[in-house]
């Protein structure tokens, strides 16, 4: 196990380095730069700015400097937000996104798994049809539509929920709902098909032949086998969701990492782009390792290589 984690970490470091390199050069290849959009910047001031951040040096040298600093944990200062380091930006924005995203994934899991089970157990009956129709509709609605519909109905028309910011627990309801919508529907469908598969397995028949009740056999024998695909999906989902959704953050004016990231790309805030990309990639890879380990814990047949 320990050896496995070590090996995975080694691969992770290489992958992150590759991603950082790719991002760095791609970002610099794209025409335009961080200071172009600012008005009334004289060529001299521009040169001074570029010199300050080392942007006047050859690309390769910039790259080497960046990687060197990054290895020491220094991801540089933001080019656009004066006086803030990339690390501090991520440290303030990530928790906001993580709270909403974490709640959304939790909600999606807690609703999707039972719904999928109920649907599979009642295969072909009315309840199954209703759940599957709702879930299929759920994966068919783009998130900005959900956001605006929620906002329009509960925020504007009914006035039940606050629409901006994150002041109280009430503020969380709409963004979390909007974020949880798609994954809930997806997990429901995933759980249903995997549950149907498991219910047809011979060991389920063995359990019934032993005298286990249908309910108990579902919980003890089927769930643990059927949940595996959901676990696989949950890893990347968690990584994506906790780093914030641009759309949800924009519509509900939430100061999260998702909005920050898109903002940095359009502004060409090179250091923030690099920092956030590396952060996202690391999280993603970490989640995948966690998924593999959880998988191993749930299914003893899996050998970690």
């Amino acid at each position, binding site marked *: 196990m320990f050896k496995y984690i070590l090996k995975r970490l080694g691969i992770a470091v290489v*992958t992150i380095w*590759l*991603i950082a390199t*790719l*991002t760095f050069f*791609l*970002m610099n*290849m*794209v*025409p*335009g730069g961080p200071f172009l959009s600012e008005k009334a910047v004289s060529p001299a001031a521009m040169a001074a700015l570029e010199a300050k951040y080392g942007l006047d040096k050859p690309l390769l040298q910039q790259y080497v400097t960046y990687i060197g600093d990054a290895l020491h944990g220094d991801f540089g200062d933001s080019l656009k937000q004066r006086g803030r380091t990339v690390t501090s930006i991520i440290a303030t924005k990530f928790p906001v996104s993580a709270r909403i995203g974490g709640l959304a994934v939790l909600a999606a899991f807690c609703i999707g798994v039972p719904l999928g089970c109920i649907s599979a157990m009642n295969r072909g009956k009315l309840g199954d049809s209703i759940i599957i129709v709702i879930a*299929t*509709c759920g*994966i*068919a*609605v*783009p*998130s*900005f*539509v959900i956001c*605006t*519909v929620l*906002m*329009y109905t509960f925020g*504007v028309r009914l006035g039940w929920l606050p629409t901006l910011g994150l002041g109280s627990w009430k503020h969380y309801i709409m963004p979390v709902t909007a974020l949880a919508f798609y994954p809930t529907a997806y997990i429901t469908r995933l759980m249903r098909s995997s549950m149907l598969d498991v219910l047809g397995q011979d060991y389920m028949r063995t359990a019934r032949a032993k005298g286990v009740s249908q309910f108990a056999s579902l919980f003890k024998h089927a769930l643990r086998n059927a949940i595996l695909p959901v676990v696989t999906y949950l890893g990347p989902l968690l990584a994506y969701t906790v780093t914030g959704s*641009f*759309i949800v953050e924009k*519509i509900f004016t939430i100061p999260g990492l998702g909005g920050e*990231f*898109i903002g940095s*790309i*359009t502004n060409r805030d090179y250091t923030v*782009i690099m920092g*956030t*990309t590396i952060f*996202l*990639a690391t999280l*993603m*890879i970490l989640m995948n390792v966690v998924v593999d380990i959880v998988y191993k814990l749930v299914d003893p047949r899996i050998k970690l290589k």
Partner: protein
Amino acid sequence: MKENPNPLSFQARINPDDFLPASNEEKQSLVIMRESVSFWKDGVRRFRKNKVAMVSLAVVILIMIFSFVVPFFYPYTYEQQIRGSEHLAPMQYSEQEQELRASGEHVFPHILGTDKLGRDYAIRVMMGSRISLIVGLVAAVIILVIGSAFGSIAAFFGGWVDILMMRVVDIIYTIPDILLIVLLSFALKAPLEALGMMPGFKWIQLLGRNLISIFIVFALLYWGGMARMVRSQILTLKESEYVTAARALGAGTARIIKKHLLTNCIGTLIVTTTLQIPSSIFTESFLSFLGLGVAVPMPSLGSLASDAINGINTYPHLLFIPAALISLIILSFNLLGDGLRDAFDPKMKN
């Protein structure tokens, strides 16, 4: 000799002829063979029986007619701004139009009203769904071609080629796609514009630079899933006993690929491609929301919806119509894909 206990009850019904041997033909006539159907016929039969899938197929066809055929007969065009007709509610006429109508002329109604620039919304929605459908279909084909080529090459060569190629897929998966999309669409702006100026590349201008860069983005980013699926499919098939059996019988590689691998993969390929269409439409609508979708004045369902968000309190129908249509398109393609899977995936049989 023992007395037969009940010979009479039988003798009443049976005459000696009954114990004559039956001929082979007579015996065979008993065998009612269930007609043996080919994989495809069986699939089509099952697909036809699936009501949900048939309804979604009908909806898809209807939407296609709506977005590709109807606009030719429609009196307005998507970029035509009618002065004085801004922000009309559905079926409402502007003052000028009412005057025209009063003077006895026929004015085609704005079925879905008009937008803030006085453009007929119905035709914009039709054009929008045309763009969304084109994006979905073309992207799905691009992904199918690149993904299956990449996946099958990796699976066929195996070894370090396979490892390397799959690493590439992993990396593309791990890079935040939004970063690549945004950077690429910026990066592609200048070269595509330049290319559009060249003779022979006029079609780029016609299609719109953004649309092309969306296709390129799809081509570069989203084939990973397809590649993984094709690879695993081929790897499983390569190991399967019937392929070994075919090889043992002396079948050549070409024949094995054609006869066994392709026919067994194709069901899954069709299904995955169908399910790819809604996800591409989804992504396009998201890009439009970011302002990276198709160029104005060309509408897509995503851009129509995102344009309408600001005015949602006063003109909610401008948002709800395209939003509902996107959802309907995605829903019917999803259901269609599910239906195809149930019908054509050999593993899902019975």
